[in-house]
């Protein structure tokens, strides 16, 4: 089922959680609502579920207005960050709950309930826990039970609020892949909230990036990562080096150096902040070189195929230069060739320095 929200606004007291969100979620996709904490993503999810009421705006399910329908009637599956399993019920009863509370006329017969619960527990590979209680399960198992419980009512959409948020790193990684496979099997329209960009990258077909109650960017996951449209999107989606300076022709004057600009949104003489990912900066160890930003090597960390070099450099426009930290990723081959030592003076340069238009500099 497709979901559409139109001009959703929500305030809590004087805090504006959502300012006029309009979005469409196509049928069958797994969509990640991504953003820093407090950006309104969970509020949006709860409004779609019907657990929260928007001040203005509409929620459409398959084109029909569901704004005034009660949470009970919306037939959504909701998975909570802290599982919210019914602690006094066995796993079996937890999963059966949605079927047992149906109005008497619509309530399925006991045999059907049993069959369905076991099917769902099989699906989440936890049939052997049917008679256990939530407190006897691990975090990852509990979240899978919560998912089985949400699926038991045959929801039209699945909403997951930071589903892996309270799990440890290893379990989280396993569950992500598992959720992706499950979605490929079930093809139910799913929205999940996360503040972890890696998680969104790995799991989602499509990303909605939010910041301060607004949508920053939406698009296919890869597209958003490769073509962030705002400075916020760029900084949020990965590690980033910031280079504040002044535009001078097709270079950026940073501190005592000049770095070439790849794209030009800014006018000559304007003060801007340019961005580069760690792998987009190059280190030049040649003392003869005059191009690039003078920097000094602080630390070299080798992990796997890449090496991370931490450096400091004086940035800013001429008068107010201040020290800043930089992080550069290079291959081990490059590291061997450069033979960097802590304290060594080098220059930083880049062919992929990005500057965002002034109206998109926020964040």
């Amino acid at each position, binding site marked *: 089922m497709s979901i559409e929200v139109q001009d959703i606004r929500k305030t809590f007291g004087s805090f504006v959680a959502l300012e006029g969100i309009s979005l469409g979620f196509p049928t069958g996709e797994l969509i990640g609502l991504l953003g820093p904490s407090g950006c309104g993503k969970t509020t949006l999810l709860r409004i779609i579920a019907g657990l929260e009421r928007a001040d203005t705006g509409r929620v459409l399910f398959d084109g029909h207005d569901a704004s005034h329908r009660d949470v009970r009637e919306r037939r959504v599956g909701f998975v909570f960050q802290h599982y919210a399993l019914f602690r006094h019920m066995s796993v079996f009863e937890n999963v059966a709950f949605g079927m047992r509370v149906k109005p008497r006329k619509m309530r399925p017969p006991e045999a059907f309930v049993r069959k369905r619960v076991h099917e769902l527990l099989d699906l989440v590979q936890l049939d052997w826990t049917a008679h256990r209680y939530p*407190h006897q399960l691990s975090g990852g198992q509990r979240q899978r039970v919560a998912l089985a419980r949400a699926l038991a009512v045959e929801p039209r959409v699945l909403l997951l609020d930071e589903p892996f948020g309270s799990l440890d790193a290893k379990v989280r990684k396993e569950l992500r892949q598992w959720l992706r496979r499950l979605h490929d099997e079930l093809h139910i329209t799913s929205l999940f909230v996360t503040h972890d960009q890696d998680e969104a990258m790995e799991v989602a077909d499509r990303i909605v990036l939010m910041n301060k109650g607004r949508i920053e960017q939406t698009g296919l996951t890869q597209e958003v990562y490769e073509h962030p449209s705002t400075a916020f999107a760029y900084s949020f989606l990965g590690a980033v080096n910031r280079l504040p300076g002044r535009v001078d022709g097709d270079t950026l004057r940073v501190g005592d150096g000049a770095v070439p600009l790849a794209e030009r949104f800014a006018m000559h003489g304007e003060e801007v902040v340019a961005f580069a990912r760690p792998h987009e900066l190059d280190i030049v160890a040649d003392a003869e070189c005059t191009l690039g930003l003078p920097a000094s090597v602080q630390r070299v960390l080798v992990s796997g195929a890449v090496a991370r070099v931490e450096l400091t450099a004086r940035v800013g426009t001429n008068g107010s230069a201040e020290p800043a930290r930089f992080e550069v990723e290079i291959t081990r081959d490059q590291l061997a060739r450069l033979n960097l030592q802590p304290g060594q003076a080098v220059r930083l340069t880049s062919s992929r320095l990005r500057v965002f238009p002034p109206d998109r500099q926020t964040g």
Partner: protein
Amino acid sequence: MVTAKASVDVRSGAARFQASTATRDPPWTKVAILAISLGFFALFLLMPLIAVFVEAFRRGWALYVAALVEPDALSAIRLTLTIAAIAVPLNLVFGVAAAWAITKFDFRGKQLLISLIDLPFSVSPVISGLVFVLVFGAQGWLGPWLAEHGIKIIFAVPGIVLATVFVTFPFVARELIPLMQAQGRDEEEAALVLGATGWQMFRKITLPNIKWALLYGVILCNARAMGEFGAVSVVSGHIRGQTNTMPLHVEILYNEYQFAAAFAVASLLALLALVTLILKAYVEWRSAANSRQGEAP
């Protein structure tokens, strides 16, 4: 979380504290502290309790029974049971409603309501009684209107019920609020999303989660409802055979120098206290076992 516990030191805090040479007290400190606490316990708690029963049986079993089956005493017992039977269910409902409102909804004036719930505890019971006299009494705000319609509240059973309900109101609510706050709203919300009605959510999710705390509150509420003296004394009028509760009856007998009879009735109240303590200990033990089980939600 729970499984990891097996490898952790499972001894009680006290045992661990004593086992370590670093934290163990010197023997004389231990003896002194034990002596002080046990001495206090014997002098101020155990002795009065024994005294009540000794005095009650001083003049023999026959007189003891006679003091209890005498019409005024029976009437006092009946009235006390009636009052409790009305006040406790009322406060069960009010308490759950107040705790529900405070923990599940956000509204203006919530903090004020939380503070107001404690009012009956912080105000002297005599004042609580006087308030009702001022409102419903013959010279009170509603007095003339009530007299006109022939409704009697002060110096009658309704007044005693009102005063008792007021004094015992906080017990249930205070037990429930911290528990329900700790449990949060997630499980209730999950039930709603799964299609449960409000009533189904309350009956199948909320109630099982709070039942032990609720029972604990009800037991304390009942003990106080049967034992309340101050507020009831102000509104009752002490009419023998009509508006005398057990505590009031004890006072009257005592003032009339019928010590054995006074202590006989008092021994019933003391017995009630003992039963309450045993029930309370049992419920505490059960709810502790329950919360250990449901610790990690």
